[in-house]
Structures are given as structure tokens and as C-alpha cells.
């Protein structure tokens, strides 16, 4: 040591103990090491062994420490004593809270279960919450997928048995060209960042397609600043170019997709043999054969003449559709805002990398037809997309187009391409159909949410009215596989299709940023009947924090934070697997709550037992499970298969299948909070068609029999709906729906303009308006977090140079932004790296005064704002006497990003407009300074 340098302790004690659990600061579900000092949380870092994050951790994850100490945490059950929205509450005991809820719910269960609408928001326990709702007997259950990314999930399942994010990931080790659509900052979080870092180090290129050049698009080598809502058209132009140049993987298409399957020329349905197997023409014999026959060489170019009718393959139909000049780059350039030259260049590069940089992986494997291959062919092009392209009214077909593009290039489930994560791939046939008809006192016959195969799976009453309060699985959105949470309050208020009694919600800020038409929804929640009672009579809400929604509930059940609870991230649910392994994880109380709060899932267990739901009781009438932890360990969904796959069996050494192990949670804790079972080497790629993979999946209980299948370029269930609209079959849509169904339910991907474009004047409302969430807050329930709000405490409306200069804006200016539905006045900022006709802002920064334990002069509730005021859950009236939902007509996905606005300079108001009245806070305001150090 040099003179004068102080003596430092270079090896201070880091912590007393590390407790390993799972993060819940967003939906990514990384493994975390929680360092404890004196029984308190001292520091949080990523768990290096964890399959999701492999040691890294994002800003949210590290800021979890400020979530656990957040002053906005609710402290006790609350009973509303003032009018709804006033924020006037009285603290009550859990016993009073539970007996109140049990009283309301028991009556409904026994008399009219459909009058309970149970919707969960950022729920990570959907296999349990749906189980509860199924046994309650209400058809009215869903989580937040309908207003998030159902288009991506549904399009992926119907097309290829899985989509992006939780369903799969790029092959980061081998990909050379990665194209990311519309995901500037989110879904998922750390794995995408880690993947981009990895492929860049390998010299790969990244193409970013997004109107906004932030986040991942900032590091993209090539930026495509596309016009919002035109991604599908751009993708179809790429398909046009690739097909025209013959740059498609014919072997892959013939062997692994339904490109060679024959389409009945009269019905548009797929030709099948007596066993129901899709038929191809065998190029060797020239005769029809089932697609999976050993040695079959499916003929892509075949025709099949039978009884005077010529049937053609899916590939024929695709050639006819996509070689049409309407998809030529020159003809889409203006609409998409991308030059024809750039589209052609991208198509050429996709083809060059997929075919000229193809490689063989030295791995023998056997396909489902029994043929053994010496190697696996790699095509190092991969794609990723989530909400950006999903949250449009043409999102389902756009997502379909993207999946079809990947398949044409032969890049799905091959080395270098996109890889599924167990339990995916899983074809539609392996998923349930929807269930929605309840009877008093009885459970539903199956899960609420499923994948309709045709009109017979719609959930309609005999008079054609909707069975569900959100009108999921109706002709308005036949394939609404995640429900429509954004329509629940609006429909319940309109009593259309019927009135409900109790709205029960969890972790869903429906009176604020999670609803379209926020001010309107607030009116619906507070609206009264002539007799003075509320139009939506009862609202129960569970949340850990003093969110905007709390003020609109009659009974509040305070939840714990994520470090104070048990949870399971289950293979039955939305798992955390890797392409090379099946994995699941737990949360466990690394600290005990210092408040009178309870984990919501444990509350549901107790409610289930006290209401008397049979599955929640033993035969002697005692509760079957003490709490959620007890359920996680002891519940079996199928014999030997439960919420957690790891450490099953008497000795705790079985994965997937095995008897209940009472020590299971301890084993998870010992193992760092997760369990993983690796995919065998020969099963790592080509999973839908790979015998080794199929056998392994059966062995660990992902399914009960091998289920190889073909990718569905042509989606037959869509044709069935389309055919019904043409007048075929017993189940018929109302006449006013026919034209739309005929158009949108095309079994091959199409593009149509976002529906708002035909409801408003695009010349008047000439600007597209978007939101995204910053990486440090994506999917987070913690925007009030003391550290994170210092990163993103304000959300100006970002304007591109063209609009900035046209209106003469300067720094500090404000704009009036008007849609056909509403008006806001907000601060603006300039951003050059932005599509020239698009404005955007960060979502969910704006806060209502009096919420989240923030002071009333906090920037979030003065300069912050929501774009939601400009977006309605219904499209403007078209003069046909009907109101059409502002949703995708196939899945019902909320069309957030269809929004069109006009902009003008405004005199600066004192605060963003509209400014809603403050709510009386149920918690005290947070401290005015923090010096947080828990160790001495």
C-alpha cells in the first residue's frame, strides 16, 4: 500500500445468507439471489444457474428491494365506506373480509355462477386461477392476454404449434441474421438482450422493424422505420419476393408442412383419408397417401383429379395468392413507408443467409415417418416479434404471415433458426377446446380457454347470444383464445349479453392504464341504477399496492409482495423453459410480511373451501389444501403430473411424472428455486417431427402419446369459419357479420388496413400514435419504485422531425392531441429516429393523484399522461346501427396500436389534460428521503 492510502477492507462480508427465488418484477421470471442481512433484504442479483437469466438481471430485478419496502403496499383488508372512486376505506379483519366474500360468492355459485366475472391481470398462476374459476362454474374467466399479445400466441399455435417468447427462442448459438419486429423494449426482457449481445459477438446482423428506434432497434444494424399497422403487408411482400425467386425450402415444405396437402376444390377443406389424416400425393407413386406414411415424398406441385374435380395443393394456392402483383415491393412501398429497394434488399439477404450460409449439424436423428437422417440442416435466420405487431386489428393475420415467412425459409426448429421450448411445440389438436356453459353449483366441463376448431366450438347460447360476458368465442371474434379482459367492464355495464353481480379481479389496473377509454371506464365503475345501487353491483379486488384500481372496489384483499409468497411457475401454465430443457420454478417467502396481508392464491384456496367447491374439499368436508404451497405440492392435474415437475416421486428423483413428494418445495429451495430436465442431444431440433423428442416429451409427461404434426400454412379451422359465413353448416353467423368473416378468416395470411382506418378520416387524423414501456419498467407492477421512477418519471409525447418542424414546436411546448374519441393536452419532445408520421410515449408512467403513495405534485400525476383516453373499446359508429369492437376480428385482441390522431400546438396548461380528481389514498405518502442500508 502506498503512503497515505487508507486501509480498506477489501473482503467485507457480503451477506448472512443467500435465498434463491424467482423474480416477479416483470413477466420474465428470472432467478434471483436475495442476499439477507439481519433477516432483511440487502441486495438482489441474478442467479447464474438459472435457465432464464443465467446470472444477469435487469434494472427492475435489482430494484426489487425498493418494491419490498414500497410505501404503497397495502396493509390490511379494506372495506369501502365512501362512494366508489373516493378512496374512502375502513380497515377490516381478514375474517370479516373473507366472510363477506364467501357470502357473496356462495350465493352466486349456488344460483347463478355466470354472474361472477373473475379476471386476473398480470397473473402468473393461470393454471390455478382458471382451475378455481372452472370449479366455481362461471364461464367468465380470463387473464390479460386479450389486451396484450393473444394474436401472437394464437397465430403461432394455429400455424406451427407455438409462438415467440414463452413458446420458443432464436437459436442464439448459430443464428447469423436476426430480424426483430415491433419489440423495442419488451417481451421478453433479459434473454433477448443476452441473445442480441451473443449474436453480435458472433458477427451476426440484426434487423429492427419498428417505427421507433429505441431499445433493441437502437442497436439493430439495419432499421426499418415502418408505418404502424403495415407489418403484415411488408412480410407478404418479402414472401412475394422469396417465392418469385424460388428462394424457399422445398424439402422442408414438402416434408414438414401442409404445403403439399391437397385442398378440396369444392369446400376448401383439406382432403383426408378414412383415418382423418391429411392427404398428399406421393411423388414416387403419383397416388394419394397420408402425410405421415413411411417413405412418402409429398408432391408440392401435384394436382389430384377425382370425380371430375381437380384438387390442388396448399402450395398452389399460395403461389396464386402471393405472386400477385399487389404484394410486389413497388406496390406496398407507399403504404408501409419502406422503399421497394429496401424490401428487395431484405428479401435477398434473408435468402442469402438462409440458403447460402446453410450448414449441417453433425447430429443423427429419426423423423416421425421412421427415416433416419445423418445430419440436421441449419438455416441461420431467426425472427422475433411480440406486442408491436400483435396489438392491431390485423394482428392475427400479420403474426400468421410472419410465421409463414419463417416456415417458407425453412428456419423453424432447425439449427440457426427459431427453436421451441418445451412443452412446445404442441399442435392445436393437443390443446383443449373452449368450455363455457355453467350450471348452478357445478363445475364447467373443461377449461374456459381453448382453441376452437370450427363454429361448433363457439360459446353461444341457443338464441345466438354470447355465453361469456366478454363475448369471447362468438362470431365477433371466433378465435379469442385468451378472452377479452378489456371488454368486461364495458359489457358488464351495458348488461350485454347479461348483467353480472360480482366483478372479481386480481392485479389488473382496469381503472387506469390497462383499459381503453379510461375516463369512460371510471364512469362505468361508478354508474348507478335508478334505485341507487351500482350498475356493476359488487367489485372485489386483490392487489399488493395502492394502484388506481383499488379506489373502485368494494372489498380489497391485500396481496403480498413477490418475496413474501409461494408461487409456482408451472409447466401446466406459462413456463420458463429453454429450447434445450424443460424447466419450472417456485417463489417462496424469503421474508415474512410485516403487514396483515395474504398471498392471493392462498386466499382463493380458502375461498374455494369455504364456498364449498367440491374440488377444494376432502370427502369429510375439510379443506383439501391448507394454502397455495400445499396445493403446489399435493395437487395432481393428471395422475403423477402436478404443478411442479421437478423432484417428484418417493425419492424425489423423478422429473415430470411421479408421485407427490412432500419434500418437493425444500428440494426446489435447495436447488436454487428451479428444476430443469435437459432435452437429449438427438431431440434438440426438429422437435415436431423428431421421434426422440416426442418420446422424451411423453416420458416427462408433457403429453401422453407422441403427436407429430405438420406446420399449418393453411389453417383449416379458419376456413371452417369462413365457410360458415358463406352459408354452409348448421351454425351460422348473423347476416351482418358474414362479409367481414369471409374477408378476415382467410386460411392463408392476408393483410387488411387496421379497422380504425375505415372508421375515421385518415386525412384528418393523419398521425399514428403508439405507446411502449421502457425496459426498466416493461411488464412491471412497480412504476412507483423509488429507484425506477428516477429513470422514467416523465413521459413526453415524442414527435418526429417532420411534425416537430411543421407545427413549429420548441422544447418545453405542449400539444393538443385529438382522436375521433377524445382529446389530451400533453408535453412534447423531439425524436429524429422515428417514423415520420408516428408519435409515441411511454405507457403507464402517468399516475392518478393520490395513488401509489406518491405526492400529489409528483411528475407522474402532473406532466405524466395516458394515451388510453384517446382509445375507445368500440370503433366510432358507422351508421349501420351497430358498434364494432376496437379489437382484432379473429381473436378479439385489443387494437391499441391502430390509433390515429391529429396534433396541434397548445397553450401550456398547468398540468396534463384531462386531469382527474385526486383519490384519497388508503396508505400514507412515502418518506421524503431514503438512506437505505440494512446491514450495520
Amino acid at each position, binding site marked *: 500500500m502506498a503512503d497515505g492510502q487508507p486501509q480498506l477492507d477489501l473482503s467485507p462480508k457480503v451477506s448472512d445468507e443467500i435465498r434463491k427465488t424467482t423474480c416477479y418484477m416483470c413477466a420474465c421470471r428470472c432467478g434471483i439471489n436475495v442476499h439477507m442481512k439481519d433477516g432483511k433484504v440487502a441486495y438482489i442479483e441474478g442467479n447464474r444457474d438459472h435457465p432464464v437469466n443465467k446470472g444477469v438481471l435487469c434494472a427492475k430485478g435489482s430494484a426489487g428491494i425498493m418494491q419490498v419496502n414500497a410505501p404503497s403496499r397495502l396493509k390490511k383488508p379494506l372495506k369501502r365506506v365512501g362512494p366508489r372512486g373516493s378512496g374512502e376505506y375502513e380497515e377490516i379483519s381478514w375474517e370479516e373480509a373473507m366472510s363477506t366474500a364467501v357470502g357473496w360468492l356462495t350465493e352466486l355459485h349456488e344460483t347463478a355462477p355466470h354472474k361472477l366475472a373473475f379476471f386476473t391481470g398480470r397473473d402468473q398462476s393461470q393454471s390455478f386461477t382458471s382451475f378455481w374459476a372452472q370449479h366455481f362454474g362461471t364461464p367468465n374467466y380470463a387473464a390479460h392476454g386479450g389486451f396484450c399479445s393473444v394474436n401472437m400466441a394464437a397465430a403461432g399455435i394455429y400455424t406451427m404449434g407455438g409462438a415467440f417468447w414463452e413458446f420458443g427462442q432464436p437459436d442464439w448459438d448459430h443464428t447469423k441474421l436476426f430480424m426483430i419486429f415491433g419489440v423495442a423494449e419488451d417481451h421478453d426482457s433479459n434473454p433477448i438482450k443476452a441473445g*442480441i449481445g451473443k449474436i453480435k459477438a458472433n458477427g451476426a446482423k440484426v434487423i429492427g422493424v419498428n417505427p421507433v428506434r429505441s431499445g433493441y432497434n437502437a*442497436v439493430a*444494424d439495419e432499421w426499418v422505420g415502418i408505418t404502424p399497422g403495415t407489418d403484415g403487408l411488408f412480410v407478404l411482400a418479402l414472401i412475394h419476393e422469396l417465392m418469385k425467386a424460388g428462394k424457399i425450402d422445398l424439402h422442408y415444405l414438402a416434408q414438414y408442412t401442409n404445403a403439399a396437402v391437397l385442398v378440396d376444390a369444392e369446400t376448401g377443406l383439406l382432403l383426408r383419408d378414412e383415418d382423418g389424416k391429411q392427404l398428399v400425393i406421393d411423388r414416387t407413386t403419383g397416388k394419394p397417401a397420408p402425410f405421415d406414411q413411411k417413405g412418402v415424398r409429398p408432391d408440392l406441385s401435384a394436382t389430384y383429379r377425382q370425380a371430375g374435380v381437380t384438387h390442388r395443393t396448399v402450395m398452389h394456392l399460395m403461389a396464386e395468392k402471393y*405472386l400477385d402483383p399487389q404484394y410486389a415491393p413497388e406496390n406496398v412501398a407507399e403504404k408501409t413507408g419502406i422503399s421497394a429497394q429496401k424490401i428487395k434488399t431484405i428479401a435477398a439477404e434473408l435468402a442469402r443467409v438462409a440458403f447460402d450460409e446453410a450448414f449441417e449439424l453433425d447430429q443423427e436423428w429419426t423423423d416421425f415417418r421412421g427415416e433416419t437422417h445423418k445430419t440436421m440442416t441449419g438455416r441461420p435466420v431467426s425472427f422475433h416479434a411480440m406486442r408491436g405487431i400483435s396489438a392491431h386489428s390485423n394482428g392475427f393475420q400479420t403474426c400468421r404471415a410472419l410465421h409463414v415467412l419463417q416456415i417458407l425459409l425453412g428456419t423453424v426448429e432447425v439449427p440457426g433458426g427459431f427453436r421451441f421450448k418445451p412443452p412446445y411445440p404442441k399442435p392445436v389438436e393437443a390443446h383443449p377446446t373452449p368450455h363455457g356453459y355453467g350450471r348452478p353449483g357445478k363445475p364447467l366441463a373443461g377449461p374456459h380457454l381453448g382453441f376452437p376448431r370450427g363454429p361448433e366450438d363457439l360459446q353461444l347460447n341457443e338464441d345466438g347470444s354470447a355465453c361469456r360476458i366478454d363475448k369471447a368465442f362468438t362470431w365477433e371474434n371466433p378465435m379469442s383464445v385468451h378472452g377479452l379482459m378489456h371488454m368486461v367492464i364495458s359489457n358488464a355495464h351495458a348488461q350485454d349479453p347479461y348483467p353480472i353481480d360480482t366483478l372479481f379481479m386480481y392485479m389488473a389496473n382496469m381503472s387506469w392504464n390497462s383499459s381503453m377509454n379510461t375516463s369512460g371506464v371510471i364512469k362505468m365503475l361508478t354508474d348507478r341504477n335508478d334505485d341507487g345501487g351500482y350498475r356493476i353491483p359488487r367489485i372485489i379486488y386483490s392487489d399488493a399496492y395502492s394502484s388506481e384500481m383499488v379506489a373502485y372496489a368494494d372489498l380489497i384483499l391485500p396481496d403480498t409482495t413477490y418475496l413474501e409468497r409461494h408461487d409456482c411457475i408451472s409447466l401446466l401454465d406459462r413456463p420458463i423453459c429453454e429450447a434445450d430443457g424443460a424447466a419450472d420454478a417456485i417463489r417462496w417467502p424469503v421474508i415474512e410480511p410485516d403487514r396483515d396481508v395474504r398471498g392471493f392464491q392462498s386466499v382463493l384456496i380458502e375461498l374455494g373451501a369455504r364456498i364449498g367447491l367440491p374440488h377444494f374439499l376432502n370427502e369429510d368436508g375439510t379443506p383439501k389444501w391448507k394454502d397455495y404451497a400445499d396445493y403446489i405440492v399435493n395437487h395432481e392435474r393428471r395422475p403423477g403430473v402436478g404443478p411442479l415437475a421437478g423432484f417428484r416421486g418417493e425419492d424425489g428423483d423423478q422429473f415430470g411424472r411421479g408421485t407427490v413428494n412432500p419434500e418437493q418445495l425444500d428440494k426446489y429451495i435447495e436447488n436454487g428455486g428451479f428444476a430443469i430436465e435437459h432435452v437429449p442431444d438427438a431431440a434438440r431440433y426438429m422437435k415436431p417431427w423428431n421421434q426422440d423428442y416426442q418420446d422424451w416429451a411423453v416420458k416427462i409427461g408433457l403429453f401422453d402419446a407422441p403427436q407429430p404434426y405438420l406446420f399449418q400454412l393453411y389453417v383449416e379451422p379458419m376456413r371452417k369459419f369462413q365457410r360458415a359465413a358463406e352459408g354452409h353448416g348448421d351454425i351460422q353467423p348473423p347476416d351482418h357479420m358474414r362479409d367481414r368473416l369471409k374477408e378476415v378468416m382467410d386460411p392463408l395470411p392476408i393483410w387488411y388496413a387496421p379497422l380504425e382506418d375505415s372508421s375515421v378520416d385518415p386525412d384528418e387524423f393523419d398521425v399514428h400514435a403508439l405507446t411502449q414501456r421502457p425496459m426498466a419498467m416493461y411488464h412491471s407492477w412497480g412504476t412507483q419504485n423509488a429507484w425506477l421512477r428516477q429513470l422514467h418519471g416523465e413521459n413526453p409525447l415524442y414527435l418526429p422531425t417532420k411534425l416537430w418542424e411543421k407545427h413549429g414546436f420548441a422544447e418545453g411546448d405542449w400539444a393538443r392531441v385529438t382522436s375521433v374519441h377524445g382529446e389530451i393536452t400533453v408535453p412534447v419532445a423531439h425524436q429524429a429516429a422515428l417514423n415520420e408520421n408516428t408519435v409515441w410515449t411511454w405507457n403507464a408512467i402517468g399516475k392518478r393523484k393520490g395513488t401509489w403513495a406518491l405526492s400529489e405534485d409528483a411528475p407522474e400525476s402532473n406532466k405524466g399522461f395516458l394515451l388510453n383516453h384517446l382509445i375507445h373499446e368500440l370503433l366510432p359508429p358507422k351508421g349501420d346501427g351497430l358498434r364494432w369492437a376496437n379489437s382484432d376480428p379473429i381473436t378479439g385482441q385489443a387494437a391499441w396500436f391502430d390509433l390515429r390522431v391529429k396534433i396541434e400546438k397548445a397553450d401550456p396548461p398547468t398540468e396534463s389534460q384531462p386531469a382527474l380528481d385526486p383519490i384519497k389514498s388508503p396508505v400514507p405518502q412515502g418518506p421524503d428521503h431514503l438512506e437505505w442500508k440494512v446491514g450495520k
Partner: protein
Amino acid sequence: MTDLPTKTDRTLGLVIDLDTCVGCHACVISCKGWNTENYGAPLSDQRPYGTEPMGTFLNRVHSYEVQPEQGNAQTVHFPKSCLHCENAPCVTVCPTGASYKRVEDGIVLVNEDHCIGCGLCAWACPYGARELDQAEGVMKKCTLCVDRIYNENLPEEDQIPSCVRTCPAGARHFGDLSDPNSDVSQLVESRGGFDLMPEMGTLPVNKYLPPRLKDSWDDQSLLAPLLEPVAEEPQGFLGWLDKTLDKLPGGTA
């Protein structure tokens, strides 16, 4: 005033890759967490739930837009913390000797016991890398996690700064820049790592790796030729398809 060592045994620092930094702020908050709990006074926050919340951070990410003369504007995320300069003006300006550069590894630190919170060092630093903690009244700065990198209570792989350990994109690298064979020196060499504001004469130890050339496909002269059509019409396409299928394994051609 305080002297700088004439030579340090090693030159520890960070190499930050501006080509892969996505601006997620993971490093910012991980740093805040570690250094709130560890070295010296906690990093305090003023008005954490109020107007103009303002806390002490040792590392911040700034975002800039670059508008080339031709083509699209670009976004650059720029993480910035103390660069542990060889010729650190913050040390020489310190009136009490509280600011110093370690002989062993070149890390620039503040001895909080001797810091009087005069703020001269913050004025002297051309990078704005020091922040006076409002609660404690002492100067805070990046310590390069001096209490992690030698910490025998941590596994060896974790003996790195918290910002490096947490960075999801792998955009932050730590090592000895005086050793030409170290990974960080090799990265600087191969990627053209550069000094921030070299004209200030501070000789910063931390280096930045520049973003790769962006939007190169907008220049057609650099590219492979576009795709040649095999057919313009569906019929032609099907003819091509038929011929090509014969060439696939098992085909007749």
C-alpha cells in the same frame, strides 16, 4: 492538493460496448443496489416519492440521437461512470487528500472520512462522473466495486463490478488495461476502442467500443445482387417447382 501515483501496478477499468448497449439501465440499478449497501455511506434518495426525485447514482445511462448527413437518425445509449483516469484532475484538485488513485490497480476512490464535501473534484471532472450525496455530504463515485473485485467472500466468478455482472447484453467488460494480452485490451484493439474526450488530457482508463456502421444496406453498391425471379406468374412458378422437386434427394433428375 493531492498527488497522483507516478505509476500503478495494474490499470483496472471497464470497456463498454456501445454497439450492444440497449439502454436498459440494468447496470445503473445494480450499481445503486450494491453501493447503497456497501462501500461508505448509502446512496441516498431525496423526494423518492415526490416531485423531482433525486438520488445519488454512480453510473447513469444517457441516450443521444445522431443524425448522419444522409440517412436515418440513430440512437446511442451511453453509460457513464468514473473513467478512473491516469491523469485524474479530481484527485489533484482535492484539498484534503480524500480523493486518491490507488497504486495497486489505479482505481480512483474517495476516502469519505477525509471528504469535506467541497465539491471541487466534481467541478474538475470533465465527465460529470461524481455526485455529492445530499444526505451524507460526501462525494460519491464509482469504486469499480473495489469491495467486490478482491472479495474472498464472493465466488471468484463474481469478483467483478456489479454492473458488469448484471449487464444482460454483455456490453460491459472489466479487466486490466495495462496488460496488452488481457481480454479487455484485446477487445479495445480489435474493435477500435476509444477514449472519451481525449483532448482533456485526462487519460481515461475506461474505454468505449464504437457502434458498428449502421444502415449499410441503404447503400446498394455494397450489397450482393438482388434476387432473380424464376417466374413472374403462378403457372411459371409451378413449372419451376415441378422441375426443382425432381432435383431434391429422391427425385428423378
